[in-house]
C-alpha cells in the first residue's frame, strides 16, 4: 500500500512539473503572437492611444515580471482577464469548455463504438470481405482531411438529405455531424488498433486455454480478450481523446460549434494572451489528469502493474 501511495505521489509531482513546463513554454511563445495592442485597437486609434492601451494592459512590463505575475495568479486560480472579452479567462473557459467536452465525448463515444466494434468484427473474421471493407474504410478515415470530411457531411446530410442541421449547437441532432467529423480519424485508429490487438490476443496461449476449456466465443472475446486488452485500448483511447480535445479547432470552425478550440484559435489570432495561456494551461492540466486517471484505472485493471520489477 505504501508503494502504491508513493507511486501516486510520484505521478502527481510529474504532472505538476508537466503543467508548469507547459505554462513556461506557452508564456514564452505567446510573446511571438502579433502585438495585441494593434489587433485590439481600431484603425482610428492614434499611436498615443495605442501606447496608453499597452500600459493599461500591463504590456509595458518586462516578460519576466509578467511571467511572475501570471504564475502567481495561476497559483491562486486566477488566469487573468481576457483583453478582447473583458471577462475573467476562467469564466470564459468555464463557459466554452462544456461544448468542447460534449463534442469530444460524443466523438470518442462514436469512435469507441464504431472503432472497437468494427475492430472486433474484423479480428473475428480476418481476411474476409468484411475485414477488407473495414480496412479500406479506416485507412480512408486516416487519409481524408478533417475539414474536408466535415464539409462533405454537411453537403450530403444537411443540404441534400436535410436530415441534420448544418451547424450550431442546438440539441442532439446538431451534435451528430461534428462528432462524426471529429471522431473520424480516431475511429480509424481505434478500429485498426483494436483489430491488431485482438488478433494478437487471440493467438495467445491463455485464449487457447479458454477455447480448450469449452468457453463460448462471446465469453472469449468479450471477457477473456477484452479484459486483457483493456489497458492497451484505454491508453490508445485516452491519447485519442486528448487529441480530440485539442484538435477540435477545425471541426468547431466548420460547424460553428461554440467551443474552446475556436476560442483558442481566435484568441491566438487576436493576440488575446491571457486566454491562450489560460486555455493551454487548462488543457494541459486536463491532459495530465486524464493520463493520471488512465494510470490509476490501469492499476486496478491490470493486476501486474505495481508488481513489475
Amino acid at each position, binding site marked *: 500500500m505504501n508503494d502504491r501511495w508513493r507511486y501516486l505521489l510520484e505521478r502527481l509531482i510529474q504532472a505538476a512539473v508537466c503543467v508548469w513546463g507547459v505554462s513556461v513554454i506557452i508564456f514564452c511563445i505567446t510573446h511571438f503572437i502579433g502585438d495585441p495592442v494593434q489587433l485590439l485597437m481600431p484603425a482610428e486609434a492614434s499611436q498615443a492611444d495605442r501606447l496608453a492601451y499597452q500600459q493599461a494592459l500591463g504590456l509595458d512590463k518586462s516578460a519576466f515580471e509578467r511571467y511572475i505575475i501570471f504564475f502567481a495568479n495561476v497559483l491562486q486560480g486566477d488566469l487573468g482577464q481576457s483583453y478582447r472579452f473583458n471577462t475573467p479567462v476562467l469564466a470564459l473557459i468555464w463557459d466554452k469548455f462544456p461544448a468542447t467536452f460534449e463534442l469530444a465525448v460524443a466523438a470518442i463515444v462514436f469512435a469507441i463504438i464504431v472503432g472497437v466494434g468494427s475492430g472486433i468484427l474484423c479480428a473475428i473474421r480476418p*481476411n474476409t470481405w468484411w475485414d477488407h471493407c473495414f480496412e479500406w474504410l479506416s485507412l480512408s478515415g486516416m487519409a481524408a482531411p478533417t475539414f474536408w470530411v466535415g464539409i462533405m457531411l454537411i453537403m450530403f446530410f444537411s443540404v441534400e438529405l436535410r436530415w441534420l442541421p448544418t451547424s450550431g449547437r442546438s440539441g442532439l441532432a446538431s451534435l451528430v455531424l461534428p462528432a462524426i467529423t471529429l471522431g473520424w480519424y480516431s475511429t480509424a485508429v481505434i478500429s485498426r488498433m483494436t483489430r491488431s490487438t485482438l488478433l494478437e490476443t487471440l493467438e495467445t496461449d491463455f485464449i487457447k*486455454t479458454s*477455447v480448450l*476449456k*469449452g468457453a463460448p466465443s462471446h465469453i472469449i472475446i468479450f471477457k477473456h480478450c477484452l479484459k486483457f486488452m483493456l489497458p492497451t485500448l484505454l491508453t490508445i483511447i485516452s491519447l485519442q481523446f486528448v487529441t480530440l480535445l485539442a484538435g477540435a479547432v477545425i471541426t468547431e470552425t466548420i460547424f460553428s460549434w461554440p467551443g474552446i478550440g475556436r476560442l483558442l484559435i481566435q484568441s491566438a489570432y487576436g493576440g488575446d494572451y491571457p486566454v491562450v495561456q489560460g486555455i493551454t494551461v487548462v488543457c494541459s492540466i486536463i491532459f495530465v489528469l486524464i493520463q493520471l486517471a488512465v494510470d490509476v484505472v490501469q492499476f486496478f485493471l491490470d493486476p501486474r502493474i505495481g508488481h513489475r520489477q
Partner: protein
Amino acid sequence: MQTLLSVANLQTHFETPQGVVQAVNDVSFQLKKGEILGIVGESGSGKSVMAQSLMRVVPESNLSKISGEVYFNGIDLMTLSPKQMQNVRGSSIAMVTQNPSTSLNPVFTVQDQLLETLKFHPQQKFKNPKERMLQLMTEVQLPSPELIAKRYPFQLSGGMKQRISIAMALMCEPELLIADEPTTALDVTIQAQILELIKNIRNTHGTSIIFITHDLGVVAQLCDTVGVMYAGQLVEYNTVEEIFKHPRHPYTQALLASNPVFGKKQTSLKAMKGQPPQLTQLGAGCAFADRCEQALPLCHHTKTDLIRLENHYHHRCSIPTLSGLPSL
C-alpha cells in the same frame, strides 16, 4: 478394456503460400479407458496439430481441412456441430498445454479461471463449485489452496501454474486428458512431480491420457502405448515394451539410438543426420527415406505400406525384413 477413443485416417492440411502443408497425414490409433498413450516425435512432426485436430481447435485462419474419423465414446467428433464440440471441450476431453507461464490469463485470478470451466458446462455434476475447486487444488498438491485461489497467475511459480492448468483441465472430470508437452518448460525436479501427478490422476480417476512429448525417457516412465510421429505420420504405434525392445521402424530405431538412455552403451550416441522434410514437399515415397540408413531405392518413390499388427498397432515401412515379424 473398453475403447474410449478411436481415430482413423485423421488428416489435417493447411494451405500456405508455399503450398499445402500436410501437418497430420493419415493417423489412426485407439485409446482404451485408463490408458496412457505417449506421442513422440521431433518438433514440427505434427504432434501438437494432431492433438488440436482431435479437439477441433486448429487455428482456423489458414486451415484447409481436417478429415477422418474420431470416435469418442462411439460418437464421431468430426460430425458434431461447433456448438456441440464446444461442449465436449473442457468437459469430456480436456487439454493441458505446454507453457504454464502463458497458458493462464494474466488478468483473472486463479479462482476465476478454475470456476469458469464449470460454468461453461452446466451439465456437470458438481453442485458446489468452490468445494470442487479446492478439492482438485489439493489433489494437484497445491499448498494452501484457499490463498492461491485468490492470486493472479503472475504471483505463482511455473510449477504451481502447471498444477493449476492440470486442475483446470480436470474440473469437469474429463474422460480424456490430452497433455501437450506439459513438462517441457519446467525444471527437472518439477517435471518429475508433474509426471507423478499425471500418473496419479489416471490411477485414481481412470482418466485416459494422451501424453505428447519429445522425451523418450518420459514415455518409458509413464506410458502404456506409444505412437511415434514423423512428418505428420504415425510411423510406428505399439505398446511401450515393443517400441523400446523391438523398434520396427528405422526412424524409431534412430530415435532410440540418439538418446543417451536408450542408445547402445558400447557405441557413442548416434546423431540423426539431416533435417525433417518440408511438409509441403512430401513426395510419393517415404518421408524418412532421405535420412534413413537402410533406405532402398524404392523407398524414395513408392508409397510406404501400413503394416498392421495385432490390436490396431502398426508401423509404416516398406522394408519388411527388418521388422522380423510377418506382415499381415
